[in-house]
């Protein structure tokens, strides 16, 4: 028995509606990005990316630029280019996030992205938030979507409130933050030995949907998964970033264009570091109503391709339409 298909069409120009962005943490300590293998997962469903990729939705004004420089080796008279060499390897990416969230805001801000911890009474005013209320401890039984805390502690959190969940700062130096490295601490003095500092910068945040005698039910899983027993919980009211700061956010990124004929184009940047400070772009809806998007720019940093040892900053994959010649 044999099977056949109709004669494929010639290769067609890809036509897509928009670009969708996915980001995943980079292990800064071990300099290990999250690698995406298009031969394994290239056809993932757009709304359910493979773990640990986080869907940041449709983006706009996506633009990638190769800024690598090339040189030539010339011989003879008159000089004639005989060979080319790649002098520098460099690339940038810019885009706009349509939706504001902890992650999109942090990516666009570039530097440390802070949680506004609900302040304790009598704290001195400060631009990124003052001293916070006392954190509450976890008890046994927490999951990535449930924080087990005592009934009396749970009573202090109302449905709809926001929380940050992370360990106390205890004089450690280096990268900090559970799930995602959120800041680099050079010394305890640099952060005033603030026990809340890690919770202040942590990406391990969520919204509370309900509060009970046994703890807090979360509307979304914590990025660090099941919380460690040493983590503590503090209420937050929002987020703040700054123009300035010495820390650079670094993330692995995927940008996907789905074509109308079933083809898919995937741009994978294993290491993207922020290249710019916070900025927004307004798009008119119906004057004076405007929609505000987060502008973000990144520089691509290199990884080594295990197949041939080449240093590269980006992988562009094309998964052809099933109806065309290749």
């Amino acid at each position: 028995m044999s099977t056949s298909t109709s004669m494929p069409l010639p290769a067609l120009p890809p036509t897509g509606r928009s670009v969708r962005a996915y980001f995943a943490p980079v292990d800064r300590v071990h300099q290990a990005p999250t690698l995406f293998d298009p031969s394994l997962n290239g056809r993932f469903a757009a709304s359910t990316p493979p773990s640990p990729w986080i869907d940041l939705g449709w983006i706009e004004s996506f633009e990638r630029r190769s800024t690598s420089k090339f040189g030539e080796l010339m011989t003879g008279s008159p000089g004639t280019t005989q060979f080319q060499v790649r002098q520098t390897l460099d690339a940038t990416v810019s885009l706009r996030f349509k939706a504001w969230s902890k992650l999109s805001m942090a990516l666009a801000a570039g530097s440390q992205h802070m949680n506004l911890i609900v302040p304790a009474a009598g704290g001195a005013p400060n631009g990124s938030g003052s001293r916070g209320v006392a954190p509450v401890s976890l008890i046994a039984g927490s999951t990535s979507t449930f924080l087990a805390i005592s009934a009396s502690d749970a009573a202090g959190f109302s449905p709809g409130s926001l929380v940050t969940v992370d360990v106390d700062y205890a004089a450690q130096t280096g990268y900090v933050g559970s799930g995602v490295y959120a800041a680099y601490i050079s010394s305890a003095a640099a952060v005033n030995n603030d026990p809340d500092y890690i919770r202040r910068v942590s990406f391990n945040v969520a919204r509370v949907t309900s509060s009970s005698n046994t703890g807090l039910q979360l509307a979304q899983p914590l990025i660090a998964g099941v919380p460690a027993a040493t983590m503590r919980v503090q209420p937050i009211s929002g987020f703040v970033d700054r123009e300035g700061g010495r820390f650079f956010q670094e993330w692995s990124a995927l940008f996907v264009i789905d074509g109308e004929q079933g083809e898919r184009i995937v741009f994978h940047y294993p290491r993207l570091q922020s290249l710019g400070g916070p900025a927004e772009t307004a798009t008119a809806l119906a004057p004076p109503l405007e929609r505000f998007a987060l502008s973000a720019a990144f520089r691509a940093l290199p990884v080594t391709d295990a197949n041939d040892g080449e240093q590269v900053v980006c992988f562009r994959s094309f998964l052809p339409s099933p109806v065309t010649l290749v």
Partner: protein
Amino acid sequence: MQNAKDTFYITLRSRLAAVNPARTMTLRAATRPGILVSEAEAPPAQPLLDVFALNWTGMQADLQLPAILARMTCEIRYCTAGTQNNAGLDRGRALEEMDSEVLKLLYPYSAPKVNYTQDPAVTMETIVFWSEPEFDPITTLRDSLSRTVKVTVFAFQEQGEQ
């Protein structure tokens, strides 16, 4: 989208009852604030005088957001011939009064979305919001003056919402 349209109408109707309780109409044997949704009433032979008629016209949707953002155009049309006591000579003043009321009905430019298909009505998660009014020029037809005000109403589609 229907919840957003219902919310917009009920919001304006409630505000009208507070802004000008005397502006009422009797329609289908019921006296109520002088504002209606044209598509929910029998087509009138001629425009009703001294009431606000909401007409839903344009519709767009931004599908590339985490939740669909619906953008609907509502044309608020109203017409007046002034009062009989003044032989209609006050029709300019009457129209100005309705212009002023429209401004008050629309502000603030938002309201919590409510599902009025349930009894009792259920307040939903998001806020319906709308643009500032865009007043068209006056149209004169015999002894009456009319105007159309365009407003763009925005609403995020919530999960499970029809």
